[in-house]
């Protein structure tokens, strides 16, 4: 072993090692590049904004469908919209948040005539890509003032409405009179869902305690932190937990799995495959983007894209509670009544935009 550390042999061995490592890295990079390129296989024609008839579109998401949540909902909706309209879709998952403008430009160059940029963190990059490539892009959670005819329009989930329905279901299920909220990030949609949830709980019983905890400001994928937060909220007595998180949901589910007598309310996607005992799932506030995507694509075809915002709400079926065996007829009846109240405008849940505002709603106890 010592001989190799001195003289010509050592230098030769060093060079060989460097060459080997460099070769391996180059091979890996080449493999990665070809993988991404494979996603862009269909179509080469670059569309322009306006009255182009969309025959293929793309969805770019920061994570993948295994998050049981936001990314799963977007990907499922894109596949559903493609099937409904009989057009092609390219899914680009795990795009992360870095250099997203480049990713969107590449997707546009790959032939997508319409792109869903499935994260509010993509909005700035999407605006630049839409202007540069003349491809209409659907962004997330933006106001109508960000719409640009022919280029940019937003899908806007009304999370407070779904949260309200979940709150009604939670209040009717809890026996400990304590329910919990776990968020993995400071996210506008989740704050809105949380305030709606608290108001839904208090609409049934103002004496119920709503506990709140956050994993981190942007801990979307922090499974370990999610497990810790959920374990503590369960230990403090909550027997119904409403969890909001992407990859952090894995941690929530581990804590729920290890507990007894605790029901879980998921958000956005279907978490049933992630639970060893599916009966622990009370329901999930499902988000269905398909109506929004279908309408947006039709508007691109008609040349009216960018003139309206596309709501994802209770009224258009974009937001609803997942049916499970744990949703008793009494709970379903109460949820249906609340749903009608939201649709007719007699119930208008508060839209919180920060943790402090959620705390204020919880402190107000529905007053």
């Amino acid at each position: 072993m010592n001989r190799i550390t001195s003289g010509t042999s050592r230098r030769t061995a060093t060079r060989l090692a460097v060459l080997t490592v460099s070769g391996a890295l180059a091979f890996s990079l080449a493999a990665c590049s070809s993988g991404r390129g494979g996603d862009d296989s269909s179509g080469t024609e670059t569309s322009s904004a306006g009255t182009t008839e969309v025959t293929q579109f793309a969805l770019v998401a920061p994570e993948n469908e295994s998050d049981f949540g936001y990314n799963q909902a977007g990907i499922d909706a894109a596949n559903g919209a493609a099937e409904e309209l009989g057009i092609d879709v390219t899914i680009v998952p795990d795009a992360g948040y870095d250099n997203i403008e480049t990713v969107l430009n590449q997707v546009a160059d790959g032939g997508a005539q319409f792109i869903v940029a499935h994260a509010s963190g993509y909005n700035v990059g999407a605006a630049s890509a839409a202007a540069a490539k003349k491809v209409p892009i659907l962004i997330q959670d933006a106001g109508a003032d960000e719409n640009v005819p022919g280029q940019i329009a937003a899908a806007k989930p009304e999370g407070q409405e779904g949260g309200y329905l979940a709150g009604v279901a939670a209040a009717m299920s809890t026996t400990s009179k304590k329910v919990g909220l776990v968020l993995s990030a400071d996210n506008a949609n989740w704050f809105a869902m949380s305030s709606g949830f608290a108001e839904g709980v208090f609409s049934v019983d103002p004496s119920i305690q709503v506990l709140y905890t956050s994993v981190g400001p942007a801990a979307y994928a922090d499974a370990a932190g999610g497990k810790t937060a959920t374990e503590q909220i369960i230990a403090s007595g909550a027997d119904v937990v409403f969890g909001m998180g992407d990859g952090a949901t894995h941690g929530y589910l581990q804590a729920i799995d290890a507990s007894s007598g605790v029901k879980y309310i998921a958000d956005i996607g279907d978490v049933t495959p992630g639970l060893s005992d599916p009966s622990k799932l009370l329901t999930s506030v499902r988000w269905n983007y398909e109506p929004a995507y279908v309408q947006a694509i039709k508007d691109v075809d008609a040349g009216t894209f960018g003139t309206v915002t596309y709501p994802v709400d209770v009224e258009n079926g974009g937001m609803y509670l997942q049916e499970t065996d744990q949703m008793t007829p009494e709970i379903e009846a109460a949820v249906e009544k609340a749903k009608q109240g939201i649709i007719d405008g007699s119930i208008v849940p508060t839209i919180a935009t920060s943790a402090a505002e959620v705390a204020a709603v919880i402190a107000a106890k529905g007053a």
Partner: protein
Amino acid sequence: MSDMLSAAFITVFIATVIAQAMPLLLAAVGETIGEQAGILNLGIEGVMLVGAYTAFVVTLTTGSFWLGMLGGAIGGVVANLAMLVLNVWLGLNQIVIGLAITLIGEGITSVLYLQNYTKSPASLGAQPKLPIPGLSDIPVIGPALFQQSGIFWICILLALGLAFALARTNWGLSTRSAGQKPSSLDAAGGSVMRTRSIAVLLSGGLVGLGGAYLALLTTATFSPFLTNGLGFIAIVITMLSRGRILVVMITSLIYGLAVAIGPALQVIGFTVPADIIKMLPFLIVIVMLIVFARSSVVPPALGTPYTRGAR
């Protein structure tokens, strides 16, 4: 607020502190052995991830947490082979190699996880507990401390055994010599290369074990970038602990406390910004650095490749 501080809540809080501290403890013990031998491994973030992913896959495949932990340790050893060959044997720069190991570990585990588990995400469930008769019945502390899994106790015994071996055995003396003054070890008839090679491999095994503990017991699943900077915190703790594994154990528990206290404060009614919660463990490490930095002593030959006869 007071009604929140129930026995069950405090029990879970203590258990959380331990669960968060253990991966850091194992990784920092591994790094301590490496540093005492003169090897500064900045790649332990990547090594932990390789250990975590390997343990996750082995446990999913075999259904055995014990085999998973073994797989994690082997994964860590394999990941540290790069440090062994490129630094110990070939004398290349430790910092560059360490950073490369981190990046490669993060990349490989993310790609493999996304390739294999995207469509069918998997969870591991809970490791069976091993209650210690009598002690596990003590209120509050009993369930938190004495109803841990067998793996927990093995890891604690391993850390204590290595603390003894590093301080009181010939192997420990050789290891410390390789970091203090390798030429003396060489002159005394010891092999610096062999000593450092053993230290690097042992270090990799322990760091891999830390990653495995994080995936199998702390989180009970794997996700890309699961370690979230834990490897770098282990490096800081190792440097502050001056090679004393008992100090590593205490500082790891302080870290666990910092992680657990954020959600706990929120649950009992304090409105704590999420940024503070996420920042708290790192903030405490920085404070410890400021307070103890003057007393931190690293081996003189740390980071220096050994070449026989070189001046």
